[in-house]
């Protein structure tokens, strides 16, 4: 148990002793304590953070289609929603995304494969892009995210791809290779759709912590 959990435990115990936390029906304090902790544990954990990197660019266009007709690279759809730790939508959330092109190059002069989206009431997003290439200095395919929502901590993170050769077919074992990916959870499973225009898809839901 870490320090924060211990403090929380002390505080809860204190609340029960002082009558600040009481059961609606008669209940032993240990049972009350356990129930409360169980309910708290069900709150989802915030999405882990990852580095911002040197290539963030302000002022990206509000577009969800990043891929242009004829662009080289494997078409990729990214879907997700932005939520709080209770799974509720966060209207007013904004996400900035940027990634390398199929050859692993970031567009620092213009805004190719960069977007800034205001998510609106549904708090959901869809990006039509391509699988990012391998940027030579950080050779795991990734998409950068900067997410903000009123009343919540800004999150800087990245999405990675379980199919990336970098993980050698075993992201569970190899995600921490070369200290690139900080958290297994950021490595997303890839679905392949072969009907119509073949494309890959990942889901990347984002959970923000209260400010």
């Amino acid at each position, binding site marked *: 148990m870490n320090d924060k959990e211990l403090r929380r435990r002390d505080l809860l115990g204190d609340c029960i002793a002082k009558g600040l936390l009481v059961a609606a029906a008669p209940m032993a304090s240990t049972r009350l304590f356990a129930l409360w902790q169980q309910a708290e544990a069900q709150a989802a954990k915030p999405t882990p953070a990852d580095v911002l990197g040197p290539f963030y*660019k302000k002022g990206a266009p509000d577009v969800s289609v990043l891929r242009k007709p004829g662009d080289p690279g494997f078409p990729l759809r990214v879907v997700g929603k932005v939520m709080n730790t209770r799974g509720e939508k966060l209207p007013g959330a904004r996400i900035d995304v940027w990634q390398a092109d199929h050859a692993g190059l970031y567009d*620092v002069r213009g805004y190719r494969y960069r977007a800034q989206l205001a998510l609106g009431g549904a708090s959901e997003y869809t990006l039509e892009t391509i699988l990012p290439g391998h940027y030579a200095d950080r050779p795991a395919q990734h998409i950068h995210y900067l997410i903000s929502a009123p009343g919540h901590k800004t999150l*800087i993170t990245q999405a990675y791809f379980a199919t990336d050769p970098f993980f050698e077919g075993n992201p569970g074992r190899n995600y921490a290779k070369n200290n690139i990916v900080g958290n297994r959870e950021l490595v997303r499973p890839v679905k392949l759709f072969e009907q119509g225009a073949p494309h890959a898809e990942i889901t990347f839901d984002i959970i923000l912590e209260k400010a």
Partner: protein
Amino acid sequence: MPRTIESEAGVRAVAFLDGGAAIAGWCSDRKARVWDTATGHLRETLEHASLPPSLAALASPLVTSSGGELSAEAVIPNKQWNENVVRVRDRSGAGKFQLPAGLGGISVIGFSPNGKALAAGSYDTSLRVWNTANGELLRHVEELPVSMFAMDFSPDGRWLAAAGADRIVYVWDTATWRLARKLAGQPEMISALAFSSDGRRLATGGFSELTVTHPVKILLWDFASGKPERTFDAPACVRSIALARDGKWLAAAFGGKTVVLHGLA
């Protein structure tokens, strides 16, 4: 032909000493090495506490004002990357200010020559300048599209030049903190920048979008005209650049175990 000095450890920052007679490198093992410029022989190895001021000013992540009165260090609380803090300490090491400085990490940090101002660029593209007497924010530059990777004050303190991912050198007038000039000409992103000690020249070093190990250019500019005067080849992303006081040398470091010296005379 440029000369190469071999270092035992990767060199992150370079500065000339003794008017150009010696060159010092701040290395990846948190020690500095001082070489004789003429012969390339190692003169001495120094710990952080005994760095000469010109190198202590560049010994990131802990930079020191030229008189040694103040030091500043970038801190990322809890490795969350959504909060940069710059900690300023006085000579005794006592904390003076904790300055909020954007998010995503600090890309570049340095004091003005008289130590009265501290400037820091963040990877969120913002740049801040503080008054070191009271911690007041003198200028918050929010209009840059990209991050600044390199920065230097002119030796007289009149100008602050910074450059980064969009290949442009931005120059602010420190009297008003207004953007005064923009210099274009570097063919790559800019990762190193330094004024000459007379303030008449500026050197910039490139960073290829392909990779840090890709060859780039070093440019030597006439600051008054804003025109590049000379161009040199560099083997990789330039991490640090320096011009000797005697005007004879330009030194560059690339993060690896070499310092390259270009003769200017």
